[in-house]
């Protein structure tokens, strides 16, 4: 499982500044856009917000995984972000979210990438993985959190 392919040091922030749900989504999208993975950031934001309207992707346990599937995405990738203070994300458990994964998928993503994403989603349900992500300070830390058994 090649997790590295989906992440990149340039798409990670270990100190997110945003204080609200929408702001943090914008901050994450900005990283994605700067890295050249988006053709239209407004359009992608719309897709992500629309998904949030269905129900919040704040899955509780301090984690949020906003995601969008949209034609404005150039290749499937993930933005990783940590907020030290925590952000109210309308999470299922009512607690603030600290760890963010913004997942961007193009309209016709191939299965390999989707498999990696499903693998990551599953991993997030495990507490030890979450702990490592909390304390992650580098690209390598994030990758190793997922790769370790």
């Amino acid at each position, binding site marked *: 499982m090649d997790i590295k392919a989906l992440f990149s040091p340039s798409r990670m922030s270990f100190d997110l500044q945003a204080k609200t749900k929408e702001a943090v989504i914008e901050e994450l999208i900005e990283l994605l856009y700067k890295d050249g993975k988006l053709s239209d950031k407004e359009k992608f934001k719309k897709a992500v917000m629309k998904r949030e309207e269905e129900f919040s992707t704040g*899955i509780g346990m301090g984690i949020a995984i906003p*995601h969008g*599937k949209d034609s404005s995405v150039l290749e499937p990738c993930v933005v990783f972000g940590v907020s030290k203070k925590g952000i109210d994300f309308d999470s*299922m458990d009512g607690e603030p979210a600290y760890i963010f994964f913004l997942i961007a998928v193009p309209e016709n993503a191939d299965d390999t990438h989707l498999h990696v*994403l*499903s693998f990551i*989603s*599953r*991993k997030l349900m495990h507490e030890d993985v979450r702990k490592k992500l909390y304390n992650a300070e580098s690209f390598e830390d994030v990758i190793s959190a997922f790769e370790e058994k």
Partner: protein
Amino acid sequence: MKKIVAVTSCPTGIAHTYMAAEALQMAAKELGVEIKVETRGSVGAENEITADDLKQAHAVILACDTKIDEDRFQGLPIVRASVKDAIKDPKGLITKAMSMEKKDYVDKVFEAKKEAKEKATGVYKHLMTGVSYMIPFVVAGGILIAISFAFGIKAFEQKGTLAAALMDIGGGSAFYLMVPILAGFIAFSIADRPGLVPGMIGGLLANKLGAGFLGGIVAGFAAGYLVAWLKKTIKLPKTMEGLMPVLILPVLSTLIIGLGMIYVVGEPVAALNKAMTEWLKSMSSGSAVLLGIILGLMMAFDMGGPVNKAAYTFAVSTLAAGQPSTIMAAVMAAGMTPPLGLALATLIAKDKFTTEEREAGKAAFFLGISFITEGAIPFAAADPLRVIPSIMIGSAVTSVLSILFKCTLAVPHGGIFVLPIPNAVGNLLLYAVAIAIGTVVTALIVSILKPKKV
């Protein structure tokens, strides 16, 4: 160990589907429950639930926010939840699934019956509504008449005796209401409460005019559609709307249906009714055999569906005169042999049925002796091409034998429980023989046709 199967699915199919799956798996591990989770995400279905899994499964958890095909889980208790619930409280879902009872066979049969009822539409549904309200009247009347016969077939002719009283209750009253109730509730099914009045009155007129069952059905449908049409067509000022249900609809519809029955429908239908009865009476053994075959095939063909009910309703109509009927006897026998024959087959050809089916065989036996043909449905559903022809042949054999043996039945229902009532069944011994032969024939054909289970 109990096993749970689950399906998770979310609209985007990227993240939640898998998180829910993982959450369920983790919770199951903790609770010591075996689980298999099928994920239906954007990559399609993964870790798919197989027929084997279903066999071992105790219950199903559907954590789905999208529509999925649930047919394959038929018969298993289902816990429905959203993906969110599965992520938030996977343990709760599993505990709930574990506490659910696997429905047993008899429940399944009744559920299938109910489902068929709900699915029924249009003309068939209206007719069935009428028939279902009428049946208890026929059963009450029929059994009381049968008890009267127990005092001797002509005992009721003696005025002031209990036999005469029973005949008056059963034949004179319960049977008298049969056609009005049928017509009334056909109309009720079509046009709701306002349909009841013209329907019942039309049915009663059909009785009086000698148009019987057929006349009742005509009256019921005519009344129902007439009222529905009147309701739509008559527009009253707001202040007078209250008059519609209490005055205008009942009077107008009853007038039209009543006159229609007397001047238009009554005579020809009465003639038709008479001709049919005559034909039944005059049947030579040749055409009796043909009729027996047809009725037998019909009873087994869809096990409680419209074809079966058509044959049954026809048979009930032959009882309306209050006389024991050979047709009724043939039809009841033919409706009993499918489940009975399958029950027997699970005993003589054990290796051709699954453990579950062998268990179901016992239940089928009881449904069979109670004249609940639907007891054969689960077997037929599992293997229709082999089972349905077998039970049709068995039923046809029973039906023909019953007619040839001149067996008669004075009641419309009851299965084996009416047999001990003296004179309820004419030619009791041979009737039992006819049923037994049909059962054996069904069992043998099924056993020969079905392949061995490995």
